[in-house]
């Protein structure tokens, strides 16, 4: 009798499990062709949740304090240090995109290179201007920041070759038409046609015609630049004797520290330090660097969940939202 009971119980358990799992799996995938995560693109929330739900409290997402995106955003909107206490702090652009995409009441800010559709995000126009590359270049979209780099001092490289290859790479990425092309294809914003042909620039950097597979360019600093820099480095490899590279992107705060600051001889020493903002003149003097400038621009885009009816924000809206003055979606824009 007891045995039977147990058997029945087991069967019931098994059925329950199978049904729950099946329910998890069954949700159809709307985008079909693209390899997407069922949960993130899953249409269920958009159909089930009345957007936005509940009290329509605004959920503010922000990046960690080392982030260049955050510094850029706070600088443009002008609320440094006034961020609302209710913010959720995330430590990367990707996490930001993923989490705001899961939260119908969320608002955050990401780099323009982010894949909005895939993360269930809606990019907001800023002051009525859509965030596009063209609008950044023509200056109408003002919520933007520069991607900058700085390097070790000219006499502070492991070897002369190391110095030359770093110089060659920076010339390729920053000055050449081809390099700029790659940066743009990876989402950076810069004027391709203004660049010089690489064949011309190459003459000043004979090192690229050697076998450089023993050299490694070490990059550190901002995570936002990673995609652009990685693309540039990968394409540079092919034209510069297969030079190796190492990207250890951790945050804009480290860009200067790892090439010129107190970490330049430490465990994380780098050749090129990147920041997704300007280097701070007072704290991060780049005067001794071999080269230091902005190589492209990036738009910061305020994003909300794709089901949020909002489509445009003003500087004042963002200021109020991020300082906590505006607490619910109903108040936005009033």
């Amino acid at each position, binding site marked *: 009798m007891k045995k039977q009971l147990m058997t029945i119980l087991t069967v019931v358990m098994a059925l*329950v*499990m199978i049904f729950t*799992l099946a329910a998890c799996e069954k949700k159809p995938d709307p985008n079909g062709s693209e390899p997407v995560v069922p949960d993130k693109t899953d249409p269920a929330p958009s159909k089930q949740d009345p957007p936005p739900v509940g009290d329509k409290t605004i959920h503010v997402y922000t990046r960690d304090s080392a982030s260049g995106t955050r510094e850029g955003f706070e600088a443009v909107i002008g609320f440094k240090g006034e961020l609302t206490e209710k913010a959720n702090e995330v430590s990367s*652009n990707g996490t930001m*995109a993923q989490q705001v995409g899961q939260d119908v009441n969320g608002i955050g800010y990401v780099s323009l290179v982010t*894949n909005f559709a895939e993360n269930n995000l809606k990019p907001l126009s800023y002051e009525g201007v859509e965030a596009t590359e063209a609008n950044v270049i023509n200056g109408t979209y003002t919520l933007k920041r520069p991607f900058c780099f700085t390097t070790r001092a000219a006499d502070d490289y492991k070897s002369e070759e190391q110095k030359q290859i770093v110089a060659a790479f920076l010339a390729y990425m920053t000055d050449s038409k081809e390099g700029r092309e790659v940066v743009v294809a990876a989402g950076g914003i810069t004027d391709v046609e203004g660049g010089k042909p690489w064949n011309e620039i190459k003459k000043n950097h004979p090192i690229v015609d050697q076998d450089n597979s023993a050299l490694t360019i070490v990059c550190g600093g901002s995570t936002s630049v990673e995609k652009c820099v990685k693309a540039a480095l990968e*394409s540079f490899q092919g*034209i510069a004797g297969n030079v190796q590279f190492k990207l250890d992107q951790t945050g804009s705060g480290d860009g200067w520290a790892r090439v010129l600051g107190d970490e330049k001889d430490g465990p994380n020493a780098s050749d090129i330090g990147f920041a997704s903002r300007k280097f701070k003149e007072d704290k991060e003097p780049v005067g001794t660097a071999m080269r230091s400038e902005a190589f492209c621009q990036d738009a910061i885009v305020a994003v909300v969940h794709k089901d949020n009816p909002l489509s445009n924000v003003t500087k004042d809206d963002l200021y109020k939202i991020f300082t906590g003055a505006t607490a619910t979606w109903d108040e936005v824009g009033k």
Partner: protein
Amino acid sequence: MTRIRKIKDTVMQSFTWIASGISAWVLVAILVFIFSNGWKLLDRSVLFGDYHAKNIVSGFSDEHDVNATFTPPEPLEDDEVISTRFGFAVRDEIDKEKNHVHTLTWVDDHSPLRNGKITTAGPTQGKPAPFKAGMNINKLIFIDSSGEEITVGRLKQQSPQEWIPILERDARQITEFHGKEPGGGMRGSLVATLMLIGLSLLFSVPIGIFAAIYLYAIAKQNRLTMFVRSSIELLAGVPSIIFSMMGITLIFPIIQLFGASGQSIILGSLTMAVLLLPVLIRQTEEALRSVPSSYAQASLALGATQTETLFRVVLPSARNGIFSACLLAVSRIIGESAALIFTMGTAIQDSPSVGSGATSLAVQIYVLMGGENPNFELASAISIVILILVLALNLTVKVVSALSDKKGKA
């Protein structure tokens, strides 16, 4: 038996079933989640491919037949665009890293593309460039009939539907081809993980086993032993993220004396070695204690020294247990992330070396999840690999202990 008692019993029993059912459900949910996300991505190129795309730049010196036409061997799919003059087809795709790429889906054996020679300086310079389906085209440079150089391709923000017709119409001679072997693989992390396993075990196994022997055979019942024991217990309770910090503050300065310069596999291994000590010591001591003390007594009574007894009789008898301890240590290494993030860094390397930073599989997952666009699929694919490895190790441990049990009984 009264009725109430019976009901009570049944209720309590069903609670136990429910509890275990929940755990089983969670396990299945995890497996289903990981597999459904990662399985379709998991192929040879993920397992053994490079993480960083490998760019190939090739030049073309030979004139090619201007009037040649090629036909694809079988009907191509709708989204593939064909260049009949140059004998290749391209499709616009999203790669593992979620970038748009133009992937070659077909290259004819006699396509002029096959005459390309690598122009990148180095040992492969001048060798024929490999062209095969699956490669990405970044851009093509050709000379048109007026002798002008024209660049087309993805880097020019053109879709295949745009640039292939231009190529077909204007090109007289292709001069340069920029392609890449797609990245997104885990081979580098796999190699780094293997290095990490080897080095960590190299450092920790001798110390772990010796310390276990000390506790088993040498240590007397006194305060020192009590202290050693409780210290090791305490060490087992230290969270792995603290080990990470220890790696930086304690071990880094030491290996710096030997010329190490930064986050590196060696630093990660030493950190892991310390982390593994309590696991190894505990398991090894248990294995030693399971050896009948009569073996040791017999050996001693035969005039063997303690060391001889340990090495000739006790350790060989405990070898299955010690082997299991090492396997458990390996599975711990494979799964560890927090202790390595600070010590080995978060830069994914394709050809890791002991003296420089790299990521283990687990850390690669962490990096992928925190990157510009979180890459659930690739992370899940790597998770599958980790899970399979870890479960295989655990299974081996079980088999080994079952075997030694059998042997012990016989």
